[in-house]
């Protein structure tokens, strides 16, 4: 599903975010990305959804060579990748329903289908009753659920989550993890950067550890491996 071959990323300021990363993530895998802050986790994820392009090397997602993609084609690739952030990034003036529907409207899905699909997804994340609330009226965990609903509403094959539980208390975090597991169970490939030792060590999945832009560890059913 996601394949990197000797990927380097050097930012204009000269910092090497990634230095020769090669990795293969299969369809329907659930991968934790761990490592100290500034190790290159975010760059790794940005490369997947083509926010950044590699300085050297090749990345393919879902069979498309992302680095060589014509700018015109980028939107169509992104429709197959859902992104979730630590800070939710909801639109404050839109209701829960509108925030999720927005992701379908801007890719010009028909209205009738939008209504049905959005309600479906809100039910999945457990927020059907809050469709008309504004983000500010929701708890952090609920806001993250809305963000996840928005990420999956277009049925992407890959979900990229950058510290999705970073702003949440432990109990709420587990709720989000259950949701991500459910989405993974339904067929999506999930790449999740995290600093949450408890989650990684309890809900055991493949762990890829990055330090100084290099993969230092890649274990199926691995452990977090860092002291907090």
């Amino acid at each position: 599903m996601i394949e990197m071959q000797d990927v380097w990323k050097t930012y204009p300021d000269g910092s090497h975010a990634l230095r020769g990363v090669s990795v293969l993530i299969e369809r329907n895998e659930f991968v934790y990305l761990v490592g100290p802050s500034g190790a290159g986790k975010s760059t790794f994820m940005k490369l997947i959804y083509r926010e950044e392009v590699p300085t050297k090397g090749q990345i393919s997602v879902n069979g498309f060579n992302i680095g060589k993609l014509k700018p015109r084609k980028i939107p169509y690739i992104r429709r197959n990748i859902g992104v979730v952030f630590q800070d939710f990034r909801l639109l404050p003036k839109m209701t829960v329903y509108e925030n999720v529907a927005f992701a379908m409207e801007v890719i010009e899905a028909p209205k009738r289908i939008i209504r049905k699909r959005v309600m479906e997804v809100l039910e999945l994340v457990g927020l059907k009753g809050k469709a008309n609330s504004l983000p500010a009226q929701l708890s952090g965990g609920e806001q993250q659920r809305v963000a996840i609903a928005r990420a999956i509403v277009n049925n992407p094959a890959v979900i990229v989550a950058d510290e999705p539980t970073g702003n949440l208390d432990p109990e709420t975090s587990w709720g989000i993890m259950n949701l991500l597991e459910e989405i993974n169970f339904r067929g999506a490939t999930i790449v999740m950067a995290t600093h949450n030792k408890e989650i990684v060590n309890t809900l055991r999945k493949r762990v890829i550890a990055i330090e100084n832009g290099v993969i230092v560890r890649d274990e199926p059913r691995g452990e977090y491996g860092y002291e907090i």
Partner: protein
Amino acid sequence: MRFSTLLRHLREGALSLARNGWMSFASVSSIAISLFILGVFLLLSLNVNNLTKQIENQVQIRVFLDLDISQAKIEAIGRSIGALSEVSRIRFVPKAEGLEMLRKNLGEDGRDILEDYDDTNNPLPDTYTVEVVDPERIAEVAAKIKAIGDADPEQPIRSVRYGQGTVELLFRVTNAVRNIGLIIVLGLAFTATLLISNTIRLTIFARRREIGIMKLVGATNSFIRWPFFIEGALIGFIGSAVTTALLLAAYNWLVQSMQVEFGLMMIRLVTVRESGLLVGGALIGLGTAIGILGSSLSIRKYLKV
């Protein structure tokens, strides 16, 4: 594009126009002012053109004959001139009629000067007035008439005159009006473009979160750009429509109320009915184009999609 998508873009564009409040107002006003001045020059230019045409049509060649030539010679000269293909009309003005006209033109002041003259000692020559088919070639025709006289051993034509320079002067005035207008309008259009571009920049800034999410979930670039184009076009359209309405109303009032004054000067103003479509079309078309240009500048510069 789906119809519902088009509606969405229109709604989004109009919404940001309203949301940008004073900035939109400034852009709309700047468009309106620039185009108002353009409109004034356009109307001025139309009228000068029209006037030039009127005067051109009145331009005649006057052929002064020698004082002591025979009646037969006079008629022969007339036939020769009339035979030229460039000549549309030729009229004989006997010296008596010439004296009469001179008296009329000079009025009170001329009475003393012409007091002593009558049919017996009329100092004026007989003349032909000649109208030409194409006023722009009047100099050429005058030369041909002169050549007819020169070819005759009696030298029956004393001189050939026409409004040398008048037509050329009018053309020069028209061009000057047009050029000055163009320079002013270009400068103002440039300012208006920058103002609109700045307004759109504000919109882009205000919507950067939304734009970020649109990109993330895979909205196409054109989908993201459309509302900004529409906002720019709306600014241009509204500004130019306001200007067109005001300008034509004011001009109509001018034409109506000054008809008599200008009529006395033998000037007929171009009416709104004749010029409205041209002026309105030009102003609204240009205004909308400036709006789109202004927004494209900002979209290109600030909307990295």
